[in-house]
């Protein structure tokens, strides 16, 4: 069964460093998302991406964040200068199409980001 994959599973970085979180969505999916979950809290939407551009972003997704789909398979989230409060689990998700009857989003296993 196709699945969303994410690498690395755990990333430890120093405050102020840049990190890139990588995701490989399901191959025939068209809509891509990043969410984050701070430990013990709910899952929060960060950004949605369609047709090679951001379709929506949340207040959390400030100028320090960017997303890219550099080729036909990868979808990346970059944090330019990490802060302590960026420590969280980051989930990538993909969706085949929005207007189908069954619009389940498929989530990756997540990347745990720890900023020291």
């Amino acid at each position: 069964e196709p699945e969303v994959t994410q690498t690395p599973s755990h990333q430890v970085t120093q405050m102020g460093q840049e990190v890139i979180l990588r995701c490989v969505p399901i191959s025939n999916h068209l809509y891509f998302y990043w969410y984050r979950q701070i430990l013990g809290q709910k899952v929060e939407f960060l950004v949605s991406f369609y047709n090679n551009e951001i379709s929506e972003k949340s207040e959390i997704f400030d100028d320090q964040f960017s997303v890219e789909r550099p080729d036909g398979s990868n979808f990346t989230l970059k944090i330019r200068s990490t802060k302590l409060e960026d420590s969280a689990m980051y989930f990538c998700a993909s969706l085949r199409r929005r207007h189908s009857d069954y619009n389940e989003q498929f989530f990756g296993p997540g990347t745990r980001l720890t900023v020291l």
Partner: protein
Amino acid sequence: SQQGEEDPQALSIQEGENATMNCSYKTSINNLQWYRQNSGRGLVHLILIRSNEREKHSGRLRVTLDTSKKSSSLLITASRAADTASYFCARHGSSNTGKLIFGQGTTLQVKP
């Protein structure tokens, strides 16, 4: 807030018992989805119920939706220790980008 609210926040039951989790929301929906998250892991889609459906079953899962009360419930029957996880309801945001807005979740512990 537009986000869903789940109750209870935490639930502890014995294996074999039924577990019921509730979710409320404040805006109109096209559908409501339920996800499970094992500790420290990703989200697994369980079931989707459309706004014109009142009840849906999938194995030991039963989901109900009351759009007049803007609430949904997830029932797990004959629970097992492996059902121990957090359960979240989620709805789509109003912006039509497909983003999901998650509730706070219910942490379920099933004791063997």
